[in-house]
């Protein structure tokens, strides 16, 4: 088997916040009836987490689960275990009207960390990122400049952004521009 590589091989840029391409990540799109007991059992056995509420991310011992729409979840696991997780989910949902698709290699993941990360992201997305508005366990699907993306918090001043792999360079470039020294807004901290 050929060696899998991430979109930008760990590209990194440090300004008033740091942007890092995090490398390969296991990501699985799951669609179906989120309220069903089959879905709850499938997600539990695959990640250890429960089915998240609207726009939330739930975390288990083997991975996390993000609410993408009323009939769609994103299961995030280690890249090395993604095929096993797909198998677990597929088996658990075998009798249900559901879809399980490995989208790991169709995506790129970036981390924005540091004091100004909130500001840097807020410049690129039409989202209120103030601490009172954006919850620590929330996922937000939106756009980053001109392309669709989603993000969630991994710490107090640390975010992860996912986007399509085909626009990884574009997203890295706009994030890099946004964190460039001199571009601080000091509005959200």
């Amino acid at each position, binding site marked *: 088997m050929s060696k899998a590589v991430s979109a930008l091989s760990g590209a990194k840029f440090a300004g008033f916040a740091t942007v890092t391409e995090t490398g390969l990540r296991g990501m699985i799109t799951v669609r179906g009836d989120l309220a069903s007991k089959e879905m709850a059992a499938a997600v539990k056995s695959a990640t250890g987490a429960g089915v998240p509420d*609207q*726009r939330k991310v739930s975390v288990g011992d083997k991975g996390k689960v993000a609410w*993408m*729409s*009323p009939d*769609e979840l994103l299961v995030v696991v280690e890249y090395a275990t993604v095929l096993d997780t797909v198998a677990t989910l597929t088996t658990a949902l075998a009798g249900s009207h559901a879809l399980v698709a490995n989208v790991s290699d169709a995506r790129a993941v970036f981390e924005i960390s540091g004091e100004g990360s909130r500001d840097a992201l807020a410049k690129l997305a*039409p989202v209120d990122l103030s601490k009172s508005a954006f919850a620590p366990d929330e996922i*937000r*699907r*939106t*756009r980053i400049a001109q392309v*669709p993306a989603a993000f969630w918090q991994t710490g107090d001043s640390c975010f992860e952004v996912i986007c399509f792999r085909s626009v990884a360079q574009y997203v890295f470039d706009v994030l890099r521009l946004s964190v460039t020294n001199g571009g601080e807004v000091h509005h959200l901290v």
Partner: protein
Amino acid sequence: MLTLQCPYCGVWAEETELHAEGEAHLKRFGPGSSDDEFESYLFMRENPKGVHFERWRHSNGCGKFFHAARSTTTLEVFGTYSAQTLEPPQDIKDKISAKYPNWSWRDFS
């Protein structure tokens, strides 16, 4: 800037996160329909100065289509609602009536 709440994910999305998808509540006329019906399905659209019903899609978000009721003159939004319906819900019609008692739009009033 127009801000609409997506009824599927609950996000208050501003216009650039959405895509306008034309008029709401169109009834499809396909094979077997008369030429007039087909022409009106394809081409005839409301262009009101005032109360209007539209389809929108939360394209940079949850991806779902939904409906919005708003005024084209004041940009006031009366509400957004599910796409799985053939007509505006009563509470939205009531809200419009409270402000514009004589409103009408196609067969709705």
